[in-house]
């Protein structure tokens, strides 16, 4: 799309149109000149025939009388006409009676004495720059009226030759006359010859041709000028279209094509302007889109990055979890083995050497055993806590009443020991929960109640109430009760309440219970009156969806 293209288009169009004009004009001039020559020749011939006929008519008496002077006079008159180069009159034998010509040497050439054609009644046209017209001089032999009238009748007929058929009405008249006199005997008494010079006519034609060529050339020049202007005018909107397109291609949509036309180019310009407007709008929205897409890509990348980080983090977490698990396991295992040995060897001493031991010795052994047991419980509870944190809960429909019965069965020994009674206050629900977890919770709560009981008759009341979308299960005892400041602390790992001697256990039972309940999206808390007893509440969602 450079400037050459524009020039090319203009030049091309101009050249095409000019070539067409040249051809048309050339052919036109050629045909015109040809027709001109033909017409001129015919006119010349016509003129010659008329002259010859006149001469033949006028020469009748001269020929009959063989009056050469008279004939010469006629001929001299004729020769004055420009186109006539020479004229001659012959008798019937072909001998020259009179001759006049522009070139006197020419007379021999026109000597028709030897010619056999003398008797024939036609005229001859020589090709070349001269035109010879031969007309016979005739008289009528049989005369009905006077000789004059006969003569008058006789001299027309021979002129109407084949070439003249298309000619004017005069020919028709002559033919008619000829028809009328057809039975009459004609007698050729001589011949006239007129030679017409074509050169003058041709020179005229030449001149005319030159003039017409000149005119045609001028017209052509003007035409080409006009064409150039027209093509320029036609190419101009195309050029501005090209320019606008080039600008648009570079992103400039503000340049419109000037449209001042009603034709297809005008329509094209209008269409182009409309297209530019649309393109501008589209481009604007496209630009916005590009910005948006880029932003999206950015955030997508950021998302991918954070996703990657998340995966990495998750991997790290899994690894850490596994390591922690391994660590806890190793600790519990490695601590338990020596603990087993301590317990076992204490037992061996007690059995094998009991006779050697006094009461103090036996007491010490018992203390070793008790402490080993404590450590073991600690280890097991820590292990349990880790297990709860690590494992997800397994939901199943669980009858809470069954759980209570099972807990009582597990704790049967200590319940009997403490003379405890378990009362189920009202109908207990069926809850979708982690059965083993919830069982652990109730074993913990009941065992705590039993463990810390200081009454002669321990009563443990278990019931349920519906509250705000939760089942509120409770375990109520008539034990020593808990001070309010410890309500929260008892659920924290390894918290000890009061004096060491007052309590057994490790302090992890409630922590484990709390974690289990929290995993159910529930809650656990305590309400208590000192000296009268404590009530532990376990709230679990009473709809499936509330449980994780």
């Amino acid at each position, binding site marked *: 799309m450079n400037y050459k293209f524009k020039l090319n288009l203009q030049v091309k169009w101009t050249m095409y149109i000019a070539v067409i004009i040249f051809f048309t004009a050339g052919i036109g001039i050629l045909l015109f000149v040809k027709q001109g020559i033909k017409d001129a020749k015919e006119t010349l011939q016509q003129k010659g025939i008329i002259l010859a006929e006149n001469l033949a008519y006028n020469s009748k008496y001269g020929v009959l009388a063989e009056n050469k002077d008279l004939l010469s006079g006629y001929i001299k008159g004729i020769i004055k006409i420009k186109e006539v180069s020479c004229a001659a009159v012959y008798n019937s034998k072909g001998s020259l009676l009179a001759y006049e010509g522009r070139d006197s040497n020419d007379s021999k050439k026109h000597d028709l004495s030897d010619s056999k054609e003398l008797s024939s009644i036609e005229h001859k046209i020589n090709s070349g720059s001269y035109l010879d017209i031969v007309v016979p001089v005739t008289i009528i032999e049989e005369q009905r009226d006077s000789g004059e009238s006969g003569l008058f009748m006789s001299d027309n007929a021979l002129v109407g030759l084949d070439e003249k058929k298309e000619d004017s009405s005069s020919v028709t008249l002559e033919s008619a006359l000829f028809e009328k006199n057809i039975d009459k005997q004609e007698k050729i008494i001589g011949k006239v010859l007129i030679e017409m010079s074509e050169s003058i006519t041709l020179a005229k034609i030449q001149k005319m041709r030159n003039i017409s060529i000149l005119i045609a050339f001028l017209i052509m020049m003007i035409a080409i000028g006009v064409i150039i202007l027209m093509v320029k005018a036609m190419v101009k909107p195309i050029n501005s279209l090209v320019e606008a397109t080039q600008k648009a291609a570079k992103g400039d949509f503000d340049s419109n094509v000037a449209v001042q036309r009603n034709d297809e180019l005008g329509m094209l310009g209008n269409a182009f302007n409309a297209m530019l407007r649309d393109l501008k709008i589209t481009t604007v929205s496209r630009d916005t889109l590009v910005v948006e897409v880029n932003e999206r890509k950015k955030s997508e990348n950021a998302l991918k990055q954070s996703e990657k980080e998340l995966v990495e983090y998750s991997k790290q977490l899994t690894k850490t979890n596994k390591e922690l698990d391994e660590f806890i396991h190793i600790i519990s295992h490695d601590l338990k083995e020596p*603990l087993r*040995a301590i317990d*076992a060897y204490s037992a061996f001493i007690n059995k094998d050497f009991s006779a050697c031991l006094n009461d103090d010795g036996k007491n010490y052994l018992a203390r070793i055993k008790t402490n080993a047991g404590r450590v073991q419980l600690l280890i097991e509870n820590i292990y349990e806590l880790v297990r709860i944190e690590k494992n997800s809960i397994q939901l199943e429909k669980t009858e809470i009443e069954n759980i209570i019965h099972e807990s009582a069965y597990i704790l049967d020994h200590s319940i009997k020991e403490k003379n405890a009674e378990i009362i189920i206050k009202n109908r207990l629900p069926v809850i979708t929960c982690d059965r083993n977890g919830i069982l652990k919770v109730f074993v913990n709560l009941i065992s705590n109640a039993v463990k810390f009981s200081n009454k002669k008759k321990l009563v443990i009341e278990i019931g349920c109430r519906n509250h705000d979308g939760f089942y509120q299960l409770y375990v109520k005892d008539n034990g020593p009760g808990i001070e309010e400041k410890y309500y929260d602390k008892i659920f924290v790992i390894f918290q000890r309440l009061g004096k060491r001697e007052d309590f057994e256990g490790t302090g992890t039972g409630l922590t484990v219970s709390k974690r289990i309940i929290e995993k159910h999206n529930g809650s656990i808390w305590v309400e208590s009156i000192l000296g009268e007893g404590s009530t532990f509440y376990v709230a679990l969602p009473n709809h499936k969806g509330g449980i994780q």
Partner: protein
Amino acid sequence: MKKEQKIIRLLLVEDNPDDIAITQRAFKEANVINKMWIVNDGQEALDFLNHTGPYEDASKSPRPELILLDINLPKINGIEVLKIIKKDEDLKKIPTIMLTVSKKDEDIINSYDIGCNSFIQKPVEFEKFVEAVKEIGLYWGVLNIEPPDEGKK
């Protein structure tokens, strides 16, 4: 009960000398009549069972009727030993009890997957362990019926 009880040929795979002492004493106190061979690692256990290495003399390494297999073992751990035993067309018929201090979920699942016959956690308290051994003796020595002789080679 004593009359019904026969001598159980036991193979104890255990590396800890304390554990060996405790187990031996527990069997004694539980009154489980037994003949116990003791090997200290996984490789030794396999040598014993296959009569290879130091146990080429088959008369010194009779086929046991029960294997007590610890998991934390040097060289080849208990799970791997179990795997090899249970892949062996002959040895897999010998009841194998996993006997370990810790109960790791992964170990329990793996052991049963491979085909252990029982998984028992050794209690920390000696008295409880004696109780457990009594029950092992009762169950595997009296109650359980072992495969007939033609199963053995």
